[in-house]
């Protein structure tokens, strides 16, 4: 069974001029799969990612997360699933600047409240250590380099041990070396830890590391959507 499955989803914005962001898209993501979404600027890559990550609600179609139909979820239910089952990494690190790297990583754990404060701290420190940030965990984002910040953002996405990580241009603001580093980390999370990675990218080098590439043009998936019956 697919861990995440979109069936003919469409996202349309209505207003003075109706805009279709994603049209009739069907995608199937398997566990441990590293998938990238590619396409020209404005083709609807990020919009598709936000739909898959329950940040946005499709106008029509079904989205199944671990077999659960999320199409009729309200805002709080979607927020709850994001907290428990999904992790996000964005182009810009989007860390909370008033908090240290450790505190940023602990943030989703604190919201979930499943672990004690000391366990939260221990787990956050473990994740940061795995990403070679053991010496930087008490630094604030302003004291970290771009690559380090993005690794902290990845650590935060892993905080509640989600099975799916969604990344929107994760290397878009990084130099080559940092980009390779981030790509390798995401690759490892898929191959070694069995997490499903869905990343939007323009970076061909990054895309080559993926198991599968989904091509999207003008909001329509033209290839790589996966098998949908």
């Amino acid at each position, binding site marked *: 069974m697919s861990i995440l499955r979109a069936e003919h989803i469409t996202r349309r914005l209505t207003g003075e001029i109706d805009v279709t962001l994603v049209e009739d898209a069907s995608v199937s993501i398997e566990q441990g799969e590293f998938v990238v979404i590619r396409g020209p600027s404005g083709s609807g890559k990020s919009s598709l990612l936000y739909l898959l990550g329950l940040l946005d609600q499709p106008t029509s179609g079904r989205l199944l997360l671990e077999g659960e139909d999320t199409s009729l979820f309200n*805002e709080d239910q979607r927020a709850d699933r994001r*907290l428990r089952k999904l992790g996000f990494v964005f182009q810009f690190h989007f860390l*909370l600047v008033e908090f240290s790297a450790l505190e940023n990583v602990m943030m989703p754990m604190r919201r979930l409240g499943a672990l004690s404060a000391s366990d939260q701290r221990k787990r956050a420190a473990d994740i940061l250590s795995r990403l070679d940030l053991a010496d930087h965990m008490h630094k604030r984002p302003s004291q970290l380099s771009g690559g380090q910040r993005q690794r902290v953002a990845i650590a935060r996405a892993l905080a509640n041990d989600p099975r799916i990580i969604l990344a929107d241009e994760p290397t878009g603001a990084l130099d080559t070396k940092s980009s390779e580093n981030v790509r390798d980390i995401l690759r490892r999370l898929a191959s070694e830890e069995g997490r499903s990675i869905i990343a939007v990218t323009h970076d061909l080098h990054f895309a080559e590391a993926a198991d599968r590439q989904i091509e999207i043009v003008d909001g329509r998936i033209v290839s790589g959507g996966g098998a949908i019956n």
Partner: protein
Amino acid sequence: MRLALDIALSHLGGRRRQTLVSLLGVMLGVGFFLAVSALMRGSEADIIKRLVDSAPHITIRDEFRMVAAQPAELAYPSGAVAISSLKPRNEPRGIRQYRRHLASIDALADDVGGLQAAPILIGQAIFSFAGRNEAVTLSGVVPSRMMNVSAVEEDIIDGSLADLDADSNGIIIGLALAKKLSLERGENVTVVSPTGNIRAMKIVALFSTGNVSYDESQTFANLTRVQALLNRPNTANSIIVKLNDASQARDVAADVERTIGYKSVSWQEASKDLLDTLIVRNVIMYTVVGAILLVACFGIYNIISTVVLEKTRDIAILKSMGFHADDIRQIFVIEGAIIGVAGSLLGIAMGAAMTYALGQVEIQPPGSTEAINLPVYWGVDQFLLAASFAIGSAVMAAWLPARKGSRVEPVDILRGAV
């Protein structure tokens, strides 16, 4: 809750200057509210205490509130009777059968939780001593009853009210009058009544209220002696009543008036203008001070709105992590509450300091010979009122921007930012 508190504190800590300005706004609002309230309510309590303590709670006068019904009206109650050019019967002033009325009033004591009543006959007289004459008010009293209903005994600085019983020819005068006529306790003065009666009376006690004009003009003597001097035997022209619970005065006065017929005036009725003025004064005070707090709340609204605007991206990130709209709203409402609580605590300290300072200021009321400290009110209720109003207003001021923040759609922000 703890997480929301940490985030709220981080927001406020990141905008120290604006937070400080908002805090100062609330602090000044609460501080001035308390100082003005303490002064206003202190003076109000002082005025009412003086009214209640120094004056009788009920005064029964030798007059009627309504004109007595005429015999023709009583004979034909439903008839078309028109009476004009009536001249009331000529009769001497005074409460007739005052002893019987006094007994009726005393009988009410158990029903109203205790009362004391005293008859008084008030008239004018001339004091004559060493070739000097002074017009005075002469009040005939029953010392044993008067002791319980008035503050005369407390104001006596030399002698006592009971000395009037020991010497039926005794008289009590004010210290100011004694000084004016170079008199001392134990000396004799000549008292002349308007009816022409002349009697030498012995000064048995001196009193001082601090009110110069009162101390120069008021004198007390035994009731029977004054009745004889004024040619009004067995007469009193007022009965004064003191209640154990002064707040019942209005109801008891109505009861007494229904029972004995004579006009009974409670201290609330007698001071109605003053009490109404105090209410108006309170309305003005709470309006002005409330406006100060309202302005402070605009400051809180401003800072929370600014933080929401600045932190829109953070809100989007928190929501993408799985924070609910309620969590976001809670963060900003907590920010308002923190400013409200901290500002209130600082304001209470400031208000208490200002109230203490005001309480140290000495003033000399007009007509008084003694300086007094400004009366201030230290009741906990006004501190609670100020703090709860400030905190409530702060939370309300934060609520609107908090609601706006909670409605941020993360996709709109992320799409715009990338």
